[in-house]
């Protein structure tokens, strides 16, 4: 019951100020309709993709394409994809690269953001300028490609992590947040004999969980969605991350992931259903993770982006 009243209260509009005229019916309808349309525009395609991936082959064949109304839900596409083979391997690669990359990026970014968070420290302005300058010019694709090749990073997972490990924007967001933490706290710790590293780990990091969550998500989404580096630096098909497998499946019109082609040819599985299932597997992690940190977005973006 208490949950119910809570819900009703949150759905009720807060009191309007006296000077504001009551909303017109037409205005409210137009606004509501517009918002519903926007949300449908986002959720509709996702719905279709998810339903198709969950549909058995007869249903997909009958409709002749994507399924809108779910009938006879089945997880057979997922169980086949996840029972080993190309897609399972690609998921492992993507998860591994995302975890390792995010951990690495967060470590160096938090260290740098803290290192630059004290105005007037030695080299503070110089390092900051050197960092921000890279936001204005790109080094260019060709020289970067040649460098990665000469460093011997091609065909290693390091080529997916190192060249894009640092986002200056993210560091600026972190730095702005760290600078907002009251200096009395770090000051007293320093008097008690704590070194910089200890201050960072015991005071700054616990106080900035929200912004750390947001930035971790940004980095993780970056690694999870990346496919271009893999497409130019990796030659071994076995090493390809999930997004690249998805490209091969859908863009290059390959029917089914290797290992499942037989099942598609003999009519046990639907190629479209499999493709849609791979898509759902690729979008699940971000769709699940982003709502949890989304309430922190605004704060995080603002402290860094505008005042940076």
């Amino acid at each position, binding site marked *: 019951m208490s949950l119910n009243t809570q819900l009703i209260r*949150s759905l009720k509009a807060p009191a309007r*100020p006296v*000077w504001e005229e009551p909303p017109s019916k037409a205005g409210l309808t137009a606004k509501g309709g517009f*918002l519903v349309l*926007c*949300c449908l525009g986002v959720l509709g395609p996702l719905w*279709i*993709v998810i339903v198709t991936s969950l549909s058995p082959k007869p249903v997909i064949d009958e409709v002749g394409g*994507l399924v809108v109304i779910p009938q006879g839900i089945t997880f057979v596409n997922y169980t086949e994809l996840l029972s080993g083979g190309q897609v399972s391997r690609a998921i492992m690669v993507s998860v591994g690269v995302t975890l390792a990359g995010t951990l690495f990026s967060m*470590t*160096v970014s938090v260290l*740098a953001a803290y290192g630059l968070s*004290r*105005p007037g*420290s*030695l080299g*503070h*302005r110089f390092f900051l300028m*050197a*960092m921000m300058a*890279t936001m*204005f*010019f790109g*080094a*260019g*694709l*060709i*020289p*970067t*490609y*040649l*460098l990665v090749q*000469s460093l011997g990073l091609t065909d290693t997972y390091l080529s997916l992590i*190192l060249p894009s*490990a*640092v986002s*200056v924007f993210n560091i600026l967001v972190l730095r702005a947040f760290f*600078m907002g933490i*009251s*200096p009395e706290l770090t*000051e007293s710790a*320093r008097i008690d*004999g704590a070194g910089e590293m200890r201050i960072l780990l015991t005071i700054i990091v616990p106080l900035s969980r929200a912004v750390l969550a947001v930035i971790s998500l940004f980095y993780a*989404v970056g690694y*999870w*969605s990346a*496919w*271009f580096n893999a497409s130019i630096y990796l030659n071994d098909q076995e090493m390809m991350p999930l997004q690249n497998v*998805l490209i091969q499946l859908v*863009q290059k019109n390959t029917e089914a992931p290797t290992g499942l082609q037989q099942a598609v040819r003999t009519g046990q599985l639907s190629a479209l259903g499999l493709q849609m299932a791979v*898509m759902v597997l*690729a*979008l699940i992690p971000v*769709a699940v993770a*982003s709502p949890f940190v*989304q309430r922190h977005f605004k704060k995080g*973006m*603002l402290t860094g982006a*505008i*005042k940076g």
Partner: protein
Amino acid sequence: MSLTAGSRPDGTRPAAVVEEPRAAVAGATAKESVPRRTAKAGKVPFRVRWRRDRALILMTSPVIALLLLFNYVPLLGNVVAFQDYDPYVSSNGITAVFHSPWVGVEQFSRMFDDPLFWSATKNTIVLFVLQLVLFFPVPIALALVINSVIRPRVRAVAQAIMYLPHFFSWVLVVTVFQQILGGAGIIAQTLEEHGWSGFDLMTDADLFKYLVTAQAVWKDAGWGIIVFLAALSAVSTDLYEAAAMDGAGRWRRMWHVTLPALRPVIALLLVLRVGDALSVGFEQFLLQRDAVGAGASEVLDTYVWNMGIQNGDFSYAAAVGLAKGLIGVCLVLGANKFAHLLGEQGVYKK
């Protein structure tokens, strides 16, 4: 680290440029540090500062090293644009730079005579203008609508849904569009069932530019509202109240209070957008290049990729990339100058 005389963080000079969040920090420490600062302003010896701050510098160094390696070194690598670079002249790609012959600006003059380069440039500019006209106003409109919703739950849900596509990869977005709008897609099939002729938006070269703009709107318009919402939430309600007292209706309040509040943000984002004019979106075009052909989808970024990495003409591709980068920097500076002329702050201060 031991506590030496100069090791306190507030013994330092105040920052030359005080940014807003930093102002609070400076203000909080000002009380104790004022006398010392006046005594030896900026005269802390280098050795003392090094001893005091070396931990901080050590912490910053991994990022600086990475940026040096992957941003600054490749910047020097752009010299291959003035060479006839051959990666096989030496055992290593880097040392090959020292053995490749210099050709001056020959690659650039090649560029000017290259019809493919000009077609890529034309595509880039057309797409930039389209995005500016069709994409840029969408987040502003969305933010205004969301901002006028006063029920917190409705707001939160709408925002969560609109943010979502920003986190999907381009691969996913392009694939979704392909499945829905493509030749075998759901809309084409429904139309066919009802007696219309089928259509395939994904392979139509003429409609391609609208298609990619629609994709960009679908993916990022929702995300773009964040910054506008933040600017709107900073507007004082007193202004609205005063305007209402003076008899301004809903629309007049929007025109005279809300929109002026958004003006600096709009100017800032426009400057950033113009500075990025030549990078209209790389992945999106590369992914759809096969479907519509290079004629419609080739932009400068994909042209560099095609000439350099696909065809191995590194020097020429680097020259195109360098030209693009230089024009990009000029555009940022120019747009910022223009913003200053209009009385806005732009990306950086004067």
